[in-house]
């Protein structure tokens, strides 16, 4: 009956771990939101930052976060999906595709600080863009590429072969089959991937310090992509480490809470349509 006791103890321990993880996560949320939520006022979210006195907002930083995210997706989605489709559909098993596959894996393992160095030298310095929203977006796009390639490939591979065959057997070209059947059917996976990428882009700091800079345009919103463009995550780090404004700690905590809310909302916003698509695709089953 020894094994039964062991079973019971193990089960209890596993339950304990599960609960501990939930508690840990809850504690984390509580900490961040509990410390920061009270600073997240409308003025804080939309206001311009103050350089010296207390009471500055993070409006431009929030705007830049989304603007850089948007630009980086515009840049990386076509290439990432293109490469993903190539690997999933066209690529036969050759040295060439193997090389590409290894490249994607290698690229996804590159520490973000290395991307930061690369982006700084290439965009800020060599292209002479200085610290700019565009430079940040381009570097982020590089960071995102491997994730997008992978989710596209996985998404399309997960689509049953039969769809592909059915479409071709109806006399479609490969491109028609990809566009009208494969990509729509893999949309939920793609959307999940995009959420992942967006989360990374919103949270990235090491890369952007070197490419997008540490301050913001005085105009808000400023759509000029060549302007310096500190994002919210970078601001959080910078403001607490520079600590020049008297309310630096509050701004940092408020930014942390705001970032968390943004990530949460983003997840929700994307999860809902993705679930709806999923439902439609599976015929409500």
């Amino acid at each position, binding site marked *: 009956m020894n094994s039964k006791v062991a079973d019971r103890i193990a089960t209890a321990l596993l339950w304990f771990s599960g609960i501990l993880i939930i508690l840990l996560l809850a504690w984390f949320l509580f900490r961040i939101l509990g410390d920061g939520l009270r600073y997240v006022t409308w003025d804080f979210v939309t206001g311009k930052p103050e350089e010296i006195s207390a009471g500055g907002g993070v409006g431009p930083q929030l705007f830049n976060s989304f603007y850089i995210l948007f630009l980086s997706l515009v840049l990386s989605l076509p290439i990432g999906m293109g490469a993903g489709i190539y690997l999933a559909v066209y690529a*036969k*098993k050759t040295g060439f595709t193997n090389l590409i596959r290894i490249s994607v894996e290698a690229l996804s393992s590159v520490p973000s600080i290395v991307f930061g160095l690369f982006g700084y030298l290439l965009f800020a310095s060599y292209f002479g863009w200085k610290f700019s929203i565009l430079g940040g977006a381009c570097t982020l796009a590089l960071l995102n590429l491997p994730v997008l390639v992978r989710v596209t490939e996985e998404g399309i591979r997960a689509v*049953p072969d*039969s*769809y592909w*065959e*059915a*479409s*071709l*057997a*109806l*006399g*479609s*070209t490969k491109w*028609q089959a990809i566009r*009208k*059947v494969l990509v*729509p*059917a893999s949309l939920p996976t793609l959307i999940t991937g995009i959420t992942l990428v967006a989360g990374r882009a919103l949270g990235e700091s090491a890369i952007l310090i070197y490419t997008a800079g540490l301050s913001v345009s005085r105009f808000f919103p400023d759509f000029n992509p060549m302007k310096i463009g500190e994002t919210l995550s970078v601001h959080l780090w910078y403001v607490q480490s520079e600590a020049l404004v008297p309310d630096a700690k509050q701004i940092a905590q408020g930014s942390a809470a705001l970032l968390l809310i943004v990530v949460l909302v983003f997840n929700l916003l994307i999860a809902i349509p993705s679930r709806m698509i999923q439902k*439609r*695709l*599976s*015929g*409500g*089953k």
Partner: protein
Amino acid sequence: MSAKHKIKVNKLNLYYGDNHALHDIEMTIESNMIAALIGPSGCGKSTFLRTLNRMNDLIDNVRITGSIMIDGQDIYSSETDIVSLRKRVGMVFQRPNPFPMSIYDNIAYGPRIHGIKKKANLDELVERSLKQAALWDEVKDRLNKSALGLSGGQQQRLCIARLLAVEPDVLLMDEPTSALDPISTLKVEELTQTLKEKYTIIIVTHNMQQAARISDVTSFFLNGNLVETDKTDKIFTNPNDQRTEDYITGRFG
């Protein structure tokens, strides 16, 4: 002479890499007939069927020699447009494979990719195809629901309707009923009988009763060889080849 045959296969050999899967196949198939392909598992029935609309082109390392003439034209010649070949020679698969879209969009898929955009034309085509596939009455009220919500048998008829909407003239069917229940099977079998008035149908089946029930001619494959082709009656009562007889009477397979 040869133009009189709908399909004429000449010394067809197919290799999957080193695996010689079809040996010197010779066959002719006439219009408005149902030809059944039978044989034990792995004998090359599906492989042969898929050479007829060049679906094997999708597989790496496939090598083909010999020729297949459809309407007097060699489908393996370099001039052949594979896309329009596949439009003419449609295929139904073993497992129903509707797209994850509405019933309507499934049927309209083929016409749309071939350039029909007008709603009225599409509506008419969808209705006609579904009627031809004996599915219209069952689905006419739910055309905008997902096709994946249909039962297996309905899905298979939907796939046939989807095919009919691109107006092929040859239909290839690879064990189209093996995933279906008996009642759905019956419906699909009945459907083939009405379709053969307009189409040439080639059907692979494991079920010898089915071959006997629905086909006009039957070909028996064994280990990549075509053992014999003959009138279905003849094959099932008095085949020329001993191996055919052994197979049909259940002595192996």
